[in-house]
């Protein structure tokens, strides 16, 4: 291979070492394939580690009325019926076994009195469904997969950034990678590539996301000809910290509300009672008394409105603040101290206790927290086949976890992310293994593609002068915050798109000073290129969707339009002249049985289960 670039060949390359990537790699190894994982950080530090509340699976340990159909229905309703029915079905059916498998691999979940995996309540889930470990479930997941994974025989290339997918015709053939510590390149050849790179929340200043979340997978896939779907749906988590400024956006787990936390405005009112959407009204408590009964364990009582889906709660807090009823630092009060004893809070929410104590000098066992919306999650991403996770338009390319689209539609339920990782991580592993084994000859790589990519990637180091990459990142956050935030308008998005054109011109001139060794400025400059693709895609799709649904709220089109937009997914793909092309995908009619479950009332679904029409 070309020049002095080291080339290594594997059967499958997994890009990303969070829950999805590690689960996929474990599966590929189990299929007997020579597998390698490439990750931007050290092993065990991926974004999964920050997940707090739990992973949703209808294990039926905490409430035996739960089953896959109820979980499926909750997921589809949460997605505002824009999720892919088949993916929601696979997810609900397979999540319990995936969670139990983690226990076989050493995970230690909190227990019920009977010694089984305990489950907690969360927004949008009808029954307590989240397997959890206090409020550090993500750490438990990643450490379990890491400690199991290192004995499965796959290679891990840490602190190594994938920069470009290399193709042979219409199929992937490898990926060019950059070692952060030395600044050297490495070419990995493979029959199949699995992207598990997460989201792109770093395009906003107020975010719960780590530096890694720059949309690399979506951008690389787009560049290689894949379709991006539902990318306008960005989840603003209702409860991020709002004070002090340096931690604005840091996540406050939904588990606080799951464990009984109330939201109040500056007038002391539990304002969520005023924001219950019609479709959820029959399943939501309408008085504080009923909500209190539910918390005390009364199975007849309905759920408190604080546990509505995240899109609803985030908009409610935003509107309360806008109406002048916010907390001193522009949020809402989240109060667990009045509802649970201090020892209980410290046991079930230890990292929240620690986080507020250390970073905000506030004791959550005595004082309400101040919280407000923070950029959290990408529902959209790479469009994939629901069963194999193969990208729709690039052979041999697979995607799973947050970088893939489909399961969550317009809004994700809390807890469905971690279960997404393990369910679809495994399926992507199966899909990639089947593809790789069926491939006759390994694809080949032309020197030119690699040479061009290296020249492009090293350009920020080689130009004489140019723009400061960190300041360019700041400018992007400014544009996205102002124009592509929680509420969007036609004019605002139009102006944002204009500004993004100018910004993309500037990043062509990003300059990285000094040597290529562990150069933070250079890495930032490369991440900007990923964000350039994804920011444009989000803004274009958001401007196109003239309705409000889930994570996408249009101030100028406030209703959910089921007749038109409810049947359409927006797709973005690279055109022949490298321009971004937007198209509408007319959704096919769902499986009638699945649709019946998804749209049934609680009573109808219970009847379907009792009659055996739904098998559990």
């Amino acid at each position: 291979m070309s020049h002095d670039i080291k080339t290594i060949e594997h059967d499958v390359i997994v890009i990303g070492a969070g829950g999805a990537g590690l689960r996929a790699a474990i599966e590929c190894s189990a299929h007997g394939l020579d597998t390698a994982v490439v990750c931007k950080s050290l092993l065990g530090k991926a974004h999964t580690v920050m997940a707090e509340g739990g992973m949703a699976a209808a294990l039926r340990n905490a409430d035996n009325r739960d089953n896959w159909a109820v979980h499926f229905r909750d997921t589809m309703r949460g997605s505002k019926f824009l999720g892919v029915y088949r993916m929601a079905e696979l997810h609900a059916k397979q999540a319990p076994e995936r969670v139990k498998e983690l226990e076989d691999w050493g995970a230690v979940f909190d227990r019920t009195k009977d010694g089984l995996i305990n489950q907690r309540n969360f927004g949008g889930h009808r029954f307590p469904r989240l397997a959890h470990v206090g409020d550090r479930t993500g750490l438990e997941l990643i450490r379990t997969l890491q400690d199991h994974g290192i004995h499965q025989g796959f290679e891990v290339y840490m602190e190594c950034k994938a920069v470009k997918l290399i193709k042979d015709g219409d199929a992937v053939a490898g990926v060019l990678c950059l070692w952060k510590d030395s600044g050297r390149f490495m070419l990995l050849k493979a029959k199949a590539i699995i992207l598990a790179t997460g989201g792109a929340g770093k395009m906003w200043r107020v975010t719960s996301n780590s530096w890694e979340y720059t949309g690399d997978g979506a951008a690389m896939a787009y560049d290689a000809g894949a379709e991006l779907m539902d990318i306008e749906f960005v989840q603003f988590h209702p409860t991020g910290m709002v004070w002090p400024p340096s931690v604005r956006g840091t996540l406050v787990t939904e588990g606080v509300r799951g464990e009984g936390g109330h939201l109040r405005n500056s007038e002391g009112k539990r304002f969520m009672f005023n924001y219950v959407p019609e479709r959820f009204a029959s399943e939501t408590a309408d008085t504080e008394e009923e909500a209190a009964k539910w918390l005390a364990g009364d199975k007849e009582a309905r759920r408190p409105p604080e546990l509505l889906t995240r899109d609803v709660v985030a908009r409610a807090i935003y509107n309360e603040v806008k109406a002048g009823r916010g907390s001193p630092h522009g949020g809402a009060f989240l109060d667990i101290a009045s509802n649970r004893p201090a020892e209980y809070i410290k046991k079930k929410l230890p990292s929240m206790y620690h986080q507020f104590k250390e970073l905000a000098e506030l004791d959550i066992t005595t004082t309400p927290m101040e919280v407000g919306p923070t950029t959290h999650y990408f529902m959209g991403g790479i469009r994939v086949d629901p069963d194999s996770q193969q990208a729709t338009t690039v052979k041999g390319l697979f995607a799973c976890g947050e970088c893939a689209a489909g399961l969550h539609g317009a809004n994700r339920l809390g807890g469905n992310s971690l279960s997404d990782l393990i369910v679809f991580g495994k399926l992507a592993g199966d899909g990639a293994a089947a593809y790789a084994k069926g491939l006759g000859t390994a694809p080949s790589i032309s020197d030119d593609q690699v040479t061009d990519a290296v020249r492009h990637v090293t350009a920020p180091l080689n130009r004489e002068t140019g723009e400061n990459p960190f300041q360019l990142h700041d400018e992007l956050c400014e544009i996205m915050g102002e124009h592509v935030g929680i509420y969007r308008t036609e004019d605002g998005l139009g102006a944002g798109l204009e500004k993004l054109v100018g910004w993309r011109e500037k990043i062509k001139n990003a300059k990285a000073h000094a040597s290529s060794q562990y150069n933070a400025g250079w890495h930032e400059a490369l991440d900007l290129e990923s964000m350039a693709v994804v920011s444009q895609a989000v803004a274009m799709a958001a401007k196109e969707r003239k309705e409000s649904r889930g994570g996408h709220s249009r101030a100028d089109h406030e209703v959910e339009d089921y007749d038109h937009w409810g049947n359409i997914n927006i797709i973005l793909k690279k055109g022949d002249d490298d321009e971004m092309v937007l198209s509408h995908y007319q959704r096919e009619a769902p499986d009638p049985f699945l649709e019946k479950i998804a749209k049934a009332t609680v009573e109808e679904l219970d009847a379907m289960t009792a009659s055996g029409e739904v098998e559990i």
Partner: protein
Amino acid sequence: MAKRTFKIWRGNAEGGEFVTYETDITEGMVVLDAIHQIQSESANDLAVRWNCKAGKCGSCSMEINGKPKLSCMTRMNSMPATGEIVIQPMKAFPVVKDLVCDVSYNYERNKMIPPFSPRPREADGTHRMVQDDVDRIQEFRKCLECFLCMDVCHVHRDHGKQKEFSGPRWMIRLASLEMHPLDIVDRIPLIKKEHGSGYCNITRCCTEVCPEHINITDNGIIPLKERVVDRFYDPIAMLMRKVFGPRKPHKKLPVIND
């Protein structure tokens, strides 16, 4: 607040020096914020490892005014009101560049530990463990792998016995397996020999720096040392083994009430 002066170690494996920077400090900032501000303003190529900035990933370990800490959880208002703030990489690991160390030793040590191997699931497809029995290993499983405990362990830091002793992080990992109610592997001989549990002389420096407040020494290392002693140095047990054959490692199995 006003401008503060930082002395940050810059360099690589070949050598380096402290470089002085100034930056504005505003309310609520942590040391990592200040480093990021310096990186953005005047040192774009400054190497610093970080991820979550919320005390959950354990990436941003460094020595701040000589104390090993997570820089994302160290508030500027906890620093002395005046004077320079000195920032350097962890001393017990080789430097890669600036504040970034080569921590690959840890990944090698982890690989030496035989993985978790559970007894079979029960007839109904579940594993049963009571909360009281898992509380103690859940404490160990809070570990972020920030490696601050490894940085202060004087067996490593001062005596360079990395080969002989795996260090506190890996003692805790071993303890979490050894005390796991479902696990059936006997790692006691390994803990003694390959991981060198005898080298720890219980100064509790590791426990002091743990950002997760894991009681590393008292709850993890000392019980492991006791199990090693029971196995290898207890004369009565040795006699019993001679007479009755080798004893299976005792693992307490949970008692479940129907």
